[in-house]
């Protein structure tokens, strides 16, 4: 019986339950059905087999994707994944909350731009420029790590966050610095950044098209992933995990805690510098605005969603976190994505089937009823224009699209947040009852407010909400292993 095996909630006294046995047997219990079969196969695969599972689709992808799609879905995802790999070392393996991580990405990009661009007039080949970028980023990581060694988790977070902010200030203004011996050196351009950065030129191979960049980034990613995999399996990796679980006990066990912290910082920073140099040449420029908190949250979302400490999680997280918002850019696709996501969420969470059918039916009926009422008495509420496409047309006769949509959308947004919060407090029948208007309200907000800003506010809004919800529901992410904190 699974009920007896699951350990009781943490806030109750735990007497007479062997937690380890319970959790192992509970896990075996959960390996059931289709997902269980998939997981068993996955667990049985050798490491190179798991790599192939990812590598084969990645290698086939450029054969049929258009250039634009290859750039947006392929190349950028790979760069994000590479960044997330580095962050995974500091946050996932070693458990250090580094919020200045994006600055290292920026250091990599600017270093590459400084030695290989039309802006500065130097044109180093990539086989020299990229190692330099990695070395500079790693060196800065070392410098930041030194004062941070003694800091406990939260202090470290704030120092690194401040450091990330300092990087943006420096990148914006370092064109005016005078050095004692060199005189005036323009390091970073100004707010306009370094432009005209050279394309990669690796041992004579000039990487120029999107497809070539994709291959290069894929190679870089696999290389970094392999190195990090071996680092994690080594003594150092075990040291990191010990450090993450309990720094004090690790130190007592004679693990060199400070050195390992520094190493985690340096490794993470170096990976970010690598990603930065590739990104700079892809963009043919390094601009201060790119290395700000927005990207930091995106990369954190990738690592946390995939599961901190899991390499497979990084890939899946990058695909989801980069891919879904890209899909949202096109309003027609966005509609499909939104309603599909709602449908999947409902199917996955509501049992029994009767209740699911009732919820879906009631939501659809509610929409048509409201639409009919509004049509008859308040024509202003249905005066808005639906978008293009079949689904949009259908939605147009179900959803209220008022002519004064922004204002109403704003109020509906606030009410929606309140409704969702209340929903989490309710149980039983009331939850189901409130769910129906909440779904309708969510669709209303989506159609009238969010869909217009999918590139900016909506995307980041959803990422922020994702982090909170994920921490509440499944803090270990998709692929991470659940940890029991024994106090």
């Amino acid at each position, binding site marked *: 019986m699974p009920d007896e095996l699951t350990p009781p909630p943490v806030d109750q006294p735990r007497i007479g339950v062997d937690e380890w046995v319970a959790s192992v047997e509970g896990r075996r219990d959960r390996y059931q059905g289709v997902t269980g079969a998939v997981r068993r196969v996955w667990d049985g695969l050798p490491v190179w087999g798991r790599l192939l599972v990812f590598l084969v689709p990645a290698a086939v992808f450029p054969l049929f994707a258009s250039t634009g799609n290859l750039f947006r879905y392929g190349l950028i995802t790979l760069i994000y994944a590479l960044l997330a790999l580095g962050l995974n070392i500091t946050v996932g393996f070693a458990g250090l909350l580094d919020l200045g991580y994006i600055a290292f990405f920026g250091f990599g990009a600017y270093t590459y731009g400084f030695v290989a661009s039309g802006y500065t007039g130097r044109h180093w080949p990539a086989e020299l420029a990229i190692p330099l970028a990695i070395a500079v980023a790693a060196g800065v990581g070392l410098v930041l790590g030194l004062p941070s060694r003694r*800091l406990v988790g939260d202090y470290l977070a704030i*120092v690194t966050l401040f450091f990330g902010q300092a990087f943006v200030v420096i990148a914006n203004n370092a064109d005016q610095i005078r050095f004692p011996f060199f005189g005036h050196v323009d390091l970073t351009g100004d707010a306009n950044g370094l432009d005209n950065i050279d394309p990669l030129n690796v041992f004579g191979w000039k990487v120029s098209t999107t497809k070539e960049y994709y291959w290069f980034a894929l190679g870089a990613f696999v290389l970094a992933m392999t190195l990090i995999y071996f680092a994690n399996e080594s003594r150092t990796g075990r040291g990191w995990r010990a450090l993450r679980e309990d720094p004090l006990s690790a130190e007592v066990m004679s693990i060199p805690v400070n050195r390992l912290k520094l190493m985690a910082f340096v490794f993470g920073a170096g990976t970010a510098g690598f990603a930065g140099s590739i990104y700079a040449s892809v963009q043919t420029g390094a601009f201060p605005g790119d290395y700000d908190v927005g990207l930091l949250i995106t990369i954190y979302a990738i690592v946390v969603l995939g599961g901190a400490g899991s390499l497979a999680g990084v890939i899946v997280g990058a695909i989801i976190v980069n891919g879904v918002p890209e899909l949202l850019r096109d309003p027609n696709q966005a509609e499909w994505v939104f309603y599909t996501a709602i449908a999947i969420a409902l199917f996955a969470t509501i049992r029994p089937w009767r209740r699911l059918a009732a919820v879906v039916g009631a939501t659809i009926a509610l929409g048509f009823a409201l639409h009919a009422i509004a049509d008859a008495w308040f024509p202003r509420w249905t005066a808005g224009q639906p978008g293009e496409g079949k689904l949009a047309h259908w939605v147009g006769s179900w959803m209220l699209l008022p002519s004064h949509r922004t204002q109403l959308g704003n109020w509906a947004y606030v009410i929606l947040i309140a409704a969702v919060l209340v929903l989490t407090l309710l149980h039983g029948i009331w939850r189901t009852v409130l769910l129906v208007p909440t779904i309708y309200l969510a669709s209303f907000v989506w159609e009238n407010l969010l869909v217009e800003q999918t590139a900016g506010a909506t995307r*980041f809004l959803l990422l922020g909400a994702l982090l909170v919800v994920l*921490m509440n529901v499944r803090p270990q992410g998709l692929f991470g292993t659940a940890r029991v904190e024994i106090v």
Partner: protein
Amino acid sequence: MVAVLWSKFWDLTVSGVTLGSVYALVALGYSMVYGILKLLNFAHGDVYMIGAFMGFFMLRWLGGPVDPNVAAWVAVVLMFLFAMAACGGLGVVIERFAYRPLRNAPRIAPLISALGVSFFLQNSALLLFGAAFRDYDTFDLIGGRTFHYRDIFLSVPQVLTIVSALALMVALTVLVSRTRIGKAMRATSFDREAASMMGIDVDRVIASTFFIGSALAGAAGVMFALVFGQIYHFMGFLAGLKGFTAAVIGGIGSIPGAMLGGLLVGLAESYATGYLPRGSTFQNLYVFALLILIILIRPSGILGKADVNKV
């Protein structure tokens, strides 16, 4: 040379103290929450931003700065009250839904959740209020009168900020040291488990801590907007960063420490702007340098107690 430096001194001091009072109020919220939960509440800076906006909307609801429906001082009081109430409520909601479920999770989980809340609030503000800068137009509301004593000039909003910040801090000190709930807070921050065994409703104490801390942040937001004018959706980020810096410098978890730290950060920023090379661009870097310095010399802050790690 000295005369030139001296001529700016009082102006910089006044603006530093004003800024410092704002930072001190923000720092108090950080410090109180950290003292009780050992949680770095990243969303605190954004609560401050929401406070500034709430004050703005209250002012607009009252008829705008040029011709408010009520007397100017009533308008200001109402703005403060509304912003504090709204922010306090927001703080309680954030605690209830983003932090309480994670109280027994690994240490990194609530931090990431806080990061998510911060980002959510920022972008909600961007979505609802737009990216434009808003202005309180304090001049229209209060007028341009200044007080002065010899070389020291103080504008009305500056006096208002310093005095009300002082009043709030005194009120907070009395609350924490003299009342029942204050005693419960101290007990909870000392040892949560033992406090709950003594019959203290820990959840309620934590919720009220969040309410008070967030209300202070809301007041700080209104003060900042009254003195410095412009508000926008991203303003909470830097203010939060500096508020936390102030809390760390003063010694986190200590209430007088947060006040002292706030003043120091405000003054440091103001003097850096006035005296140091390229100060107005690099002021944040100078504050950052101060933070690193303090952490290296005295990691537990000026008034903080060193943390002994026991097993």
